[in-house]
């Protein structure tokens, strides 16, 4: 059967899980991935999912909106069943209390992976293995976790930061029947038929304007100065507006690290006196391009179509789509059009509080593609 998706809009955990169970009644999943609105009680949901699929490895997280083939949803549960034709091996590790010592949490998880696999993470082939990361979206440690992963392995870890429907109170990751706050789940997959990625962000550099972060507080994701002047003043000036009105520009004019032709977006969150707080950290000395928005629907369609043409066939997608993209789609009444981009492909995903792809990024959709 390969990859099958399911979803439920029922508001009772039991009824929603029953919907998922019924949809998956004729399949034999090796792995189930699920994303659920924070309106569902996480501990109960995790238990009921595990009770329903007791022999199956599973993981997931709370969201700020869900995606399933053809639809963007709210207050729902979406799930994907992947059978042994698709996944030949899966290993799951939970990193608890990540805000205390993120690096050590990754080290412990990687040591455990290595014990289970009998080989070093640095020796695994990135063509055979891929990682998924789901992480507490309010932990503010995504950069540390991704940096540690990046130095320990050449395997790509792709994923998103869990959400809580824009309440910004508490997010959860789920693994094998339990719900975890202040945690991350790392999943190592060995897909049977190969895999690929899409990373798409709808921005282009604006007038070649480069802002150099000359004074920052990385831990609080704050840029105090651009080009040795107060950050908020410089950012406002290049956009032709004033500091008191500049937050109106955040959504359409974030900044980005340029790596060749690729953009790693950093989205402003708020003005704090004359400094700027972002949704991810910027290191001192980094040069950032001022960006302007392009068309999310057009760009995403192009990215998915190109990947389809390149691979010939896509058997499934897990889509980690930034909440800021979702909010823009909602403002423009385009959530239906976005969902429809995935109508013909078994897809699940969620609206994230940040995306992970080599590092921690914003206003991006990162997608794991199963061939």
């Amino acid at each position, binding site marked *: 059967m390969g990859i099958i998706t399911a979803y439920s809009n029922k508001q009772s955990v039991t009824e929603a899980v029953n919907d998922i169970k019924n949809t998956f009644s004729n399949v034999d999943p090796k792995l189930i991935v699920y994303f659920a609105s924070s309106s569902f009680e996480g501990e109960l949901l995790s238990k009921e999912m595990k009770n329903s699929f007791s022999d199956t490895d599973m993981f997931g997280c709370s969201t700020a909106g869900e995606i399933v083939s053809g639809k963007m949803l709210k207050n729902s549960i979406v799930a994907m069943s992947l059978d042994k034709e698709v996944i030949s091996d899966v290993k799951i590790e939970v990193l608890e209390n990540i805000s205390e010592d993120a690096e050590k949490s990754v080290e412990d998880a990687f040591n455990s992976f290595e014990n289970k696999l009998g080989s070093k993470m640095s020796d695994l082939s*990135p063509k055979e293995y891929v990682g998924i990361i789901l992480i507490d979206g309010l932990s503010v440690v995504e950069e540390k976790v991704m*940096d540690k992963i*990046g*130095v320990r392995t*050449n395997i*790509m870890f792709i994923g998103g930061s869990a959400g809580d429907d824009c309440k910004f109170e508490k997010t959860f990751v789920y693994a094998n029947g339990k719900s975890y706050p202040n945690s991350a789940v790392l999943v190592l997959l060995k897909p049977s038929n190969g895999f690929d990625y899409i990373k798409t962000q709808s921005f282009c550099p604006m007038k070649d304007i480069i802002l150099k972060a000359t004074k920052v507080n990385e831990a609080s994701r704050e840029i105090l100065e651009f080009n040795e002047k107060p950050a908020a003043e410089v950012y406002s000036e290049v956009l032709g507006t004033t500091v008191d009105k500049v937050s109106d520009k955040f959504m359409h004019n974030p900044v980005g*690290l340029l*790596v*060749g032709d*690729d953009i*790693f977006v950093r989205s402003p969150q708020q003005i704090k006196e004359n400094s700027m707080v972002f949704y991810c950290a910027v*290191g*001192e*000395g*980094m*040069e950032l391009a001022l960006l302007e928005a392009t068309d999310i629907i057009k760009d995403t369609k192009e990215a998915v179509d190109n990947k389809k043409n390149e691979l010939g066939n896509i058997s499934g997608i897990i889509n980690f789509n930034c909440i800021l993209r979702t909010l823009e789609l909602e403002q423009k009444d385009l959530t239906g059009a976005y969902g429809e981009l995935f109508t013909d492909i078994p897809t699940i995903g969620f609206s994230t509080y940040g995306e992970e792809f*080599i*590092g921690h990024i914003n206003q991006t959709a990162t997608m794991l593609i199963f061939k």
Partner: protein
Amino acid sequence: MSGRIKQIINQILDKKSNGSDLIKLTLKTKFVLKGIDPDKYSEVSSDDPAVLEKLKSVAQDFDVEVDFN
């Protein structure tokens, strides 16, 4: 003195990429996220002590032995 930064970056990239261009590209992004853009340095770039110090830390992170002398 010049060119040392590029030389060390290349050493780390070569040792960690196992000859794969794809891995090298990903590693370059990891360098940029750590605050060092490999493409900004050439054989004639001056040996900025601050960048060399940062590279020491990057080499340690990647667990790569590099001769900084």
